[in-house]
């Protein structure tokens, strides 16, 4: 379907529809919040009944999410230590029709056996597929790293991690997408990094994105699109077919494990519709996790958990933050939007609409690491975290575009459209309202109870029900705390065990953190969209005390 995935340049009916859909999420959120508050004042009995129904729904929902969080975490743990390049070789053999033995040694642990079993099923599907995947030796990778103002301290660990890949770096093109408005020091660092690491890759390009290009906003999407186009031209000059190229879009602080590209290659090869798919790893924020304030740490771990849960439902998974996709698909859909802040999720919707619903995101049970927001002081970090979460919540800008595309004679099956619509709307509205309902508005009926309400059975039963719900919910919280401790990287020597215990106790501030740094930013973003006050891109401050990786990560030998 041909659809202009932008709110700019609209006229007439499209413009009206765009505004109407922009208003809808904010209106829904405010209606729920103000409606419940008003109902608590005017009809506390009815409000209390509705809140009980909501608490029960919320409890079952978090049990549901916790269950899949555990399953996803177990899957992630299963794949930890997997030699992905060996599996890629197995895929090559399977594609060649060879039923030969796997290159890996027989698994000994239950986890390894399960992982192997999953791998065998995938290989069986590859063998049974009428169209065989290409050989891994014909697969190329392009990694675009956007640089707005970050310096060497932030960029170098990521580039080093790419240089240390098990996937042959002779087929890895790294593109540093540098904004022309970046500070001179940052620009100097970028060029210095190019000089230092160019020989480690197929090539390392620095593509400068000019400032003030007509039709573009000052957004990351414009920068990486410009770089991707340069990369496409570079590949075309070398007669590399784009359907054999996987492009990854990374933030400046993204650091990957040595097997990341091998894992990506594996998923690319084993995906039947590889040229109509994105590939989403699990983002973690371990680069500087021990240096950030507790509330920032809790929030970002929560984000990782959310992505883990989302990974268990690939039919509704949407790309987020650093992600990968077929370069052919990227070109076909017209690259990342150049006028939207949420380019990471927008590219999925854009592709979904373009391919009439025949586009999906493949979850990869491997992690890539980024920075927790840390601006030096507690207060500045709090402000920056708020702004960052608001920018994430600005993903609601996709809603009106997706709605216009979906409900304008789209060939996408209506069930798929409905599913995505409900998830998109419910997700954003819940983001903005649930913490406030739970922490604030839920208590209003009891607080504002007049004599009429305070002499009812419900007035005395509601606290009992609420107490039971929260007690049960604490089971989910305990599970989350345990998983967060399992997911956290090994602590540096200067952080004693007591401090780790303190990190576990940080989760007790979730109710407060959820309201201030999750619900309020989401409500802020939705309100801005509803009022037509579109946001400009603001780059999050990230600082590190030192490199997140120990010196044992030695760069791979030069490949030239």
């Amino acid at each position, binding site marked *: 379907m041909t659809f202009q995935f932008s709110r700019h340049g609209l006229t007439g009916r499209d413009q009206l529809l765009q505004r109407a859909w922009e208003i809808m999420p904010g209106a829904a959120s405010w209606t729920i919040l103000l409606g419940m508050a008003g109902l608590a004042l005017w009809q506390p009995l009815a409000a209390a009944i509705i809140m*009980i129904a909501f608490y029960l729904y919320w409890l*079952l929902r978090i049990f549901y999410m916790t269950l*899949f969080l555990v399953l996803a975490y177990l899957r992630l743990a299963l794949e930890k230590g997997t030699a992905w390049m060996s599996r890629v070789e197995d895929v090559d053999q399977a594609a060649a029709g060879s039923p030969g033995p796997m290159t890996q040694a027989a698994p000994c642990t239950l986890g390894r056996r399960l992982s192997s079993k999953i791998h065998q099923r995938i290989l069986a599907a590859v063998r049974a597929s009428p169209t065989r995947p290409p050989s891994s030796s014909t697969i190329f990778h392009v990694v675009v790293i956007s640089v707005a103002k970050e310096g060497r301290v932030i960029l170098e660990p990521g580039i080093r991690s790419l240089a240390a890949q098990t996937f042959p770096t002779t087929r890895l093109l790294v593109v540093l997408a540098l904004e022309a408005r970046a500070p001179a020091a940052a620009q100097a660092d970028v060029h210095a990094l190019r000089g230092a690491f160019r020989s480690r890759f197929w090539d390392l390009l620095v593509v400068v994105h000019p400032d003030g290009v007509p039709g573009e906003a000052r957004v990351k999407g414009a920068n990486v699109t410009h770089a991707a186009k340069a990369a496409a031209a570079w590949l075309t000059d070398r007669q590399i077919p784009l359907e054999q190229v996987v492009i990854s879009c990374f933030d400046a602080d993204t650091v990957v494990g040595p097997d990341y590209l091998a894992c990506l290659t594996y998923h690319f090869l084993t995906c039947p519709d590889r040229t109509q798919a994105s590939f989403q790893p699990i983002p973690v924020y371990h680069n500087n996790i021990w240096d950030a304030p507790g509330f920032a740490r809790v929030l970002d771990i929560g984000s990782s958990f959310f992505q883990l849960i989302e990974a*268990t439902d690939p039919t509704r998974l949407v790309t987020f933050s650093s992600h990968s996709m077929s370069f052919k698909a990227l070109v076909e859909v017209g690259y990342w939007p150049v006028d939207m802040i949420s380019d990471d999720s927008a590219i999925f919707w854009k592709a979904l609409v373009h391919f009439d619903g025949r586009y999906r995101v493949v979850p990869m049970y491997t992690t890539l690491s980024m920075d927790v927001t840390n601006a030096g002081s507690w207060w500045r970090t709090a402000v920056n975290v708020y702004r960052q979460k608001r920018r994430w919540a600005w993903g609601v800008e996709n809603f009106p575009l997706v709605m216009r595309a979906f409900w304008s004679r789209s060939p996408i099956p209506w069930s798929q459209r409905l599913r995505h619509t409900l998830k998109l709307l419910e997700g954003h509205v819940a983001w903005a309202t649930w913490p406030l309902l739970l922490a604030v508005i839920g208590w209003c009926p009891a607080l504002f109870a007049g004599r009429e309400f305070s002499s009812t059975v*419900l*007035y*005395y039963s509601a606290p009992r029900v609420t107490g039971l719900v929260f007690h049960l919910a604490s089971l989910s919280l305990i599970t989350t705390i345990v998983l967060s401790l399992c997911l956290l990287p090994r602590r540096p020597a200067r952080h004693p065990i007591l401090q780790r215990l303190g990190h576990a106790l940080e989760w007790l501030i979730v109710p407060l953190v959820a309201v201030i740094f999750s619900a309020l930013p989401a409500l802020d973003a939705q309100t801005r969209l509803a009022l037509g006050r579109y946001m400009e891109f603001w780059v999050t401050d990230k600082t590190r005390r030192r490199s997140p990786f120990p010196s044992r990560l030695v760069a791979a030998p030069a490949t030239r």
Partner: protein
Amino acid sequence: MLIRVRQWVFYLFVGLYLLLCPWTMLYALGYLVTPDPPGFVKTGLISLSTVPAGATVFLEHRRYTHVTPTILRDLVPGEYTVRLIIPGHAPWDRTVRVEAEKATILERVLLLPDEPVVEEILSLATETSPFHGARVRAVLAAGETPAVLLQVETDEGERALWAQLGGLEARVADLTALFAQRPLRVEWDPRAPRDLFAFRDGTLSRLDTAAFAIDPFPDRLLGFGVSQRRLYVLREDGHCVRLDREGRAAEPMGWFLLPDDGLQSGRGPGTRVTVLSGDTMLALSPQGELWVNQPPYTLAAGGVRGMVADPARERVLIWQRDRVGVVAMAQHVPTVTWAPYEGRHLTQAFWVYDGSHLLLHDGDALVLLEWDTAGAPRARTLRRVGSKHDVVYAEATGKYYYVDRTARRLLAVTLLDNAP
């Protein structure tokens, strides 16, 4: 496979929600499933709390598992006899009606000790007392303050003694020097007991008990009141003004619609002013007229002997000779609710236990009357305290104080265990 698992789990949770949600709502609303006949019955509950806590609960002569404070749930509508027993205290019972989906509230039930502890706070009979041989003529108190002003008669004449209550013994100070003449009325702010305000013949004076200084106010007044460290004076023209403790910084506070004949009829001097809320004030004349500084202006045309404000609930306790009632000021038109109690000679009344009970000085008896309670309020006679002297009740200590028959001892009796 995980997708299929997720789908099945999703449907399971949806089914669980569809099952649990209505069941939870019905439970919260008080519905109970009855096996025979099969169906639902709407239930009510009884909420119980007592002072002291920990009373054993008997419901229809069957002992309940929990002690107070507790809630008796899942009660089919009807009448129930509730009995509360705690060792060392008189049992308390009440027949209440439970209605469907309603809570019958029996909270702040006062369980009275079988043998109330009587403490001697002050004795003028002790030979070592500097006021040995004196007799108490009058007892004056102010609101909830645990302090009293005693006017005692000695061989040398009248003396004014200031007694700070609250401990095992009262601390006594002689303030006679501040009282050249016996005042018609003395009041003070419980939170600022350093300053006493004495009123006599239309003249108000501030008595500084620390500096032993008398500071008369220049204007003639109809009456005054003290509230929240501020002084409220009623001028002869019916206007009320708020002053600081030195009598300065006058702020107009509205006016009272006094009868046209004003002072000529003998009304006026000695009018008691009390503040209910920021804007609402009441005035009680010596003739028993009760006025308010907003419509309808006159709450009672006469016969009211006293009033005690309950600012937290915007109501005023008033009493006449044979009845006591509460004026609800929060309503659009203030209304008086009279208690089903027939008194003989009511002279004093107090709010007790957060306004849930009334303590009445009726003739020579002290009577405790339940107020905010379900069922018919019950009156219990606590003690014979005589009618010559006023009784003092202090919510802060949970005790009432009275002068014994010899007029030489000030005694204290605990009414509230664990005073709030």
